């Protein structure tokens, strides 16, 4: 299997994201069933899978929006949501988990911008609230980031006055404002009109080429082929196969991957 060639066997720097034997279930419903995944710094990982396969849950486990029942996740060498105490894992305090989350960017399918704050305040809020920057510096950073996503003109607007594509670009700037080591994207273009998808993908592509570690859940196969260093196909809460896009998308080894790709392509 192509997985083997990508294992960071000799690499001594910690993985950007390491998912270690994660199980997650809701009642009798197993959503994640023993997932192991390693993302190296600067790598762009695209997670594909049919609806209900657990791909969004996997992403939400990484920043601890969902707690795994078994297993753990490390981001840049730091265990998320738990600490080791002897032989056991102990849940961290809420404050500590929030501090960890502020080092992981998350971009939602539905943007989830704060509608009562201007675009500028949406981006500047988190650095100030988490005590990283003083208000004037945060505003300056927010202006710079909004310029970078092509919205330098819209700083005073409220989110609902913007198109979906613009809102998602603000959401990306908001995530960037905390200078996260990793950014997670949960179907960032699924709520957009087709003609607005391109502008959001362009911003993500720009991040990918600038060396930011990205984990992206998406249905945009063409985009995956273009920017991904690695494509992970997940189904039934398990990773079915993973590897460089030309392998997984070009000549999939697994029957379920072939079946999925034949439906979406």
């Amino acid at each position, binding site marked *: 299997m192509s997985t083997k060639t990508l294992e960071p066997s000799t690499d001594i720097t910690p993985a950007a994201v390491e998912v270690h034997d994660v199980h997650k279930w809701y009642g009798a419903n197993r959503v994640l069933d023993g997932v192991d995944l390693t993302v190296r710094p600067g790598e762009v990982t695209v997670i594909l899978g049919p609806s209900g396969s657990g791909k969004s849950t996997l992403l939400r486990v990484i920043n601890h929006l969902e707690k795994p029942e078994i297993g753990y996740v490390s981001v840049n060498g730091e265990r998320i949501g738990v600490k080791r105490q002897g032989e056991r894992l102990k849940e961290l305090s809420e*404050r500590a988990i929030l501090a960890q989350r502020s080092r*992981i960017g998350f971009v*939602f399918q539905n943007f*989830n911008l704060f509608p009562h704050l201007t675009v500028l305040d949406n981006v500047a809020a988190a650095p100030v609230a*988490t005590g990283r920057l003083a208000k004037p510096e945060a505003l300056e950073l927010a202006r710079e980031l909004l310029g970078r996503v092509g919205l330098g003109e819209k700083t005073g607007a409220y989110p609902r006055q913007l198109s979906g594509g613009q809102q998602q670009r603000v959401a990306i700037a908001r995530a960037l404002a905390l200078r996260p080591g990793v950014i997670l994207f949960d179907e960032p273009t699924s709520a957009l009109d087709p003609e607005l998808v391109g502008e959001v993908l362009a911003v993500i592509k720009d991040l990918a080429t600038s060396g930011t570690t990205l984990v992206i859940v998406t249905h945009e196969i063409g985009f995956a082929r273009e920017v991904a260093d690695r494509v992970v196909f997940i189904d039934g809460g398990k990773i079915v196969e993973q590897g460089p896009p030309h392998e997984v998308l070009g000549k999939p080894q697994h029957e379920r991957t072939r079946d999925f790709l034949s439906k979406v392509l």
Partner: protein
Amino acid sequence: MSEPPGAAVSLAEAPPADEPPKPLTAQRVLPLRRPWRWIATAVVLVLAVQFVHGLATNPFYQWDRFGYWFLRPTILDGLLITLEVAAYSAVLGLLGGILLALARLSKSPVLRAVSWTYVWALRSIPLIVVLLFLYNFSALYRTLSVGVPFGPAFFSFDESKLATDMVVAVIGLSLNEAAYAAEVVRGGILSVDQGQHEAASALGLPKSYQFRRIVFPQALRSITPNYVNQLIGLIKSTSLVFYVSLLDLFGSAQTMGSTYPGDIVPLLLVVTVWYLILTSVVSVIQFYVERYYARGATRSLPPTPIQRLRTGLTDLRARIRREAAV
């Protein structure tokens, strides 16, 4: 027969080909006449004029005595008490309501149960009963102490000195108000989209910041109209403090009425007009508060009354011109 029978039927129903329907020229559609609406309007107008005329001319109302009493110092002192009691109770009631709502939404079953029970009890007991209980509180518990529960006390207060009539009134109204406010606040918090909570925690915003700056300001949009409704109820409920020997607006009028029995009706009118004024002021404040918290929720803010009046007049003028043209 070469044709199916169905085709023959539809052919027979089609209009004759040699007489095409007359094409409609582009012209305005005549609006439907609604005579009953005009009649109903006229009847209501006549009744309204009759009522106002009666109000103005019926000697029973004694408008001269109304003028005498309206700005009397006794009445104004009472008004001040009403405002004071209402203001303290509104603020304390809202704070209590926020705490109760947070307890009700907490993950602790004990906090949830206590909050639920409090709301259940205080909404069930008539306010007047609560007030009279508190009035007699000093007889039930002679001293209040701060200390270890069931253990030694650090401070003790003589209850009868601490609990003035004003304090009793404010506590009673606040306790009652908090129960209702709790439900209003809880509804407001629940109305905020789950995605907002998620986004706030995904950004790692501290818990108190999430509530103060993200969730609560959005909740206020739906809290405001409901809480103002409560507030208006509260302003009127202050008239009950008369029964714990506090001379509020209603109490003063009541006392004057027993001294000057002939002036009872004008005194009631004085009270009515003052309560109308208070409610109107609150409504105006409500409008601007709502407008403030609508920022970002709508693409453009709702018009102020003056803006609305202006567009309303323009529309009316345009309509009259149109009707005249038809």
